[in-house]
């Protein structure tokens, strides 16, 4: 019997029933990772994982994470294991500590098995800019489809069925977009509810840690375990977080949902819109109230440039320490300028260089008022607009992506930035947001996104759990790769 393609809950049931053991499951996970065709691996932790599995002792019936293997995005620090951020500049850096999110999972006896790739330093949405090349989607024939990014390895690995879940990070949509392309649940909670201690900072005011799973229940379980205050991250909330799993109930009657007309109008794929509308009908039959609302198109047009200017500006500042002088894979040079130039020339890919250069431009004294300062003010307008909506509604519902996973080398005539980048609203406002499978087109998945008010993570996941019941897309994996 194969123990891949199982959710956390399903795997736990098998452990409790004595039908398999973490050591057996682990060997199957390792064998599948070694045969991976989608270029997901950065570093392996096989021996450490084997030791952890061996040391587990008796099965813990009330601990669903006992012996569950998982993958870690390689911008999360792992003690004693290279953490490259998928950048040549950090390709030999070994952290001295674990990120808090990993410590908390390991404390529950979950087992990290491998570090998986990403767009370099989390800057990208394609899975094409990691230092080891393109990461592909297990859906679609061959290795020809984008899986999205930046949590490309996390999404590809979970969609391949290797493990029940992977850790990811999300600065603009880096969990929720690949979740749509790979038929997964991708959840980023309210900003500050999961400690970012040990996460390589890209844009601190927008960065979140979250999960890629194959069920909403698993996302809820993981949030219950890792969420909450951390004295090592002063941006974490001190609020007591409501537990999600005990409050998952099959009831959506009376819930009010908003659908934004001006956003829907931007989506080009009418098959996605049709499936989305069919779900709205099902929700209405369940007693939910759906209202189509209007949002100023100027506010929607401002989402992408606001995100882009702020993220580039913070990124160039935050990564100034990657100089090769005191940090990073330093290259030789006669002067400190030469060392930095040579280190950063060879260490960064073009996408990262491009964003740093633009960040430098946005922060210059003469450009700042019309770029960075104005983006911060626009952020306020966007967040106020969506906060008002979310006060009146339990959630905003939208298709997560305007298209299914594109071909790797597909050249698109134009990009509709509103449709492509609308998920960034949740990063600008710190709103909890989840993508889950909505349908398939020609064998390729696409997702629905659900977003709520800050700190209503439990309510949000309950809505998502109800939607999962309606779509029937539970524990979906590609299945054609193994």
């Amino acid at each position, binding site marked *: 019997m194969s123990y891949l393609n199982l959710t956390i809950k399903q795997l736990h049931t098998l452990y409790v029933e004595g039908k398999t053991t973490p050591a057996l499951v682990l060997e199957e996970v390792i064998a599948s990772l070694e045969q991976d065709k989608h270029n997901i691996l950065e570093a392996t932790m096989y021996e450490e994982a084997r030791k952890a599995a061996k040391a587990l002792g008796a099965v813990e019936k009330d601990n669903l994470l006992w012996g569950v293997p998982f993958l870690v995005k390689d911008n999360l620090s792992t003690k004693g294991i290279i953490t490259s951020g998928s950048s040549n500049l950090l390709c*030999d*850096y*070994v952290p*001295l500590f674990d990120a808090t999110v990993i410590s908390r999972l390991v404390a529950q006896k979950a087992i990290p098995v491998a570090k998986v790739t990403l767009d370099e330093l989390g800057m990208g949405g394609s899975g094409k800019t990691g230092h080891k090349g393109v990461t592909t989607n297990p859906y679609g024939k061959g290795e020809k489809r984008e899986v999205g990014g930046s949590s490309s390895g996390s999404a590809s690995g979970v969609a391949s069925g290797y493990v029940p879940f992977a850790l990811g990070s999300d600065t603009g949509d880096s969990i929720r977009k690949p979740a749509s392309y790979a038929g997964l649940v991708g959840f980023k909670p309210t*900003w*500050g509810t999961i400690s970012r201690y040990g996460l390589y900072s890209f844009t601190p*005011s927008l960065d979140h840690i979250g999960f890629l799973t194959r069920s909403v229940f698993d996302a809820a379980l993981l949030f219950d375990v890792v969420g909450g205050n951390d004295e090592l991250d*002063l*941006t974490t909330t001190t609020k007591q977080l409501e537990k999600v799993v005990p409050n998952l109930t099959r009831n959506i009657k009376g819930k009010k949902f908003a659908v934004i007309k001006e956003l829907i109008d931007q989506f080009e794929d009418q098959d996605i819109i049709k499936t989305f509308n069919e779900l709205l009908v099902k929700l209405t039959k369940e007693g939910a109230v759906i209202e189509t609302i209007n949002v100023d198109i*100027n506010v929607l*047009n*401002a989402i*992408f*440039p*606001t995100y*882009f*200017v702020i993220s580039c500006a913070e990124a*160039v500042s935050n990564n*100034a320490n990657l*100089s090769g*002088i*005191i940090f990073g894979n*330093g290259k030789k*040079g006669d*002067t*400190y*300028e030469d*060392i*930095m*130039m*040579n280190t*950063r*020339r060879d260490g*960064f890919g*073009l996408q990262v*260089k*491009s964003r*740093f*250069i*633009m960040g*430098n*431009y946005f922060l210059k004294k003469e450009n700042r*008022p*019309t*770029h960075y*300062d*104005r*983006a*911060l*003010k*626009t*952020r*306020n*307008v966007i*967040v106020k607009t969506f906060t008002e909506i979310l006060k009146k509604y339990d959630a905003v519902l939208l298709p997560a992506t305007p298209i299914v996973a594109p071909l790797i080398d597909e050249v698109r005539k134009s990009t509709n*930035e509103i449709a492509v980048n609308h998920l960034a609203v949740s990063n*600008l*406002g*710190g709103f909890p947001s989840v993508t889950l499978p909505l349908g398939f087109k020609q064998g390729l998945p696409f997702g629905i996104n659900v977003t709520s008010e*800050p700190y209503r993570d439990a309510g949000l996941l309950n809505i998502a759990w109800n939607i999962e019941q309606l779509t029937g897309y539970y524990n979906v994996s590609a299945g054609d790769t193994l």
Partner: protein
Amino acid sequence: MKKEQIIKLGKEIFLLLNEEEGQKVADDFMYIEEQVKYLGKLENIDQEEPLIFPFPQKGVLSEDVSEDTYKPEVLFSNSKNVEDEFIVLPKVVK
């Protein structure tokens, strides 16, 4: 913006671009500048308050508490150039 200006912007932050890379970034930059124009289209935008973090951040002052730290050999493990108990750095002050 011309590629020469992009290459100059890169040098300011110790990023070297070749001609081809400079042109690619210049093309991307032109597209982004078109997008940035949307920031100015919101009414009275420059009278708005800036939003830096999603939620207000409180400064937290904590007591200084001594704690065990890593041993030197652990701290030096990522450095390629260690002598005795020192990491050797290139001279950066001229």
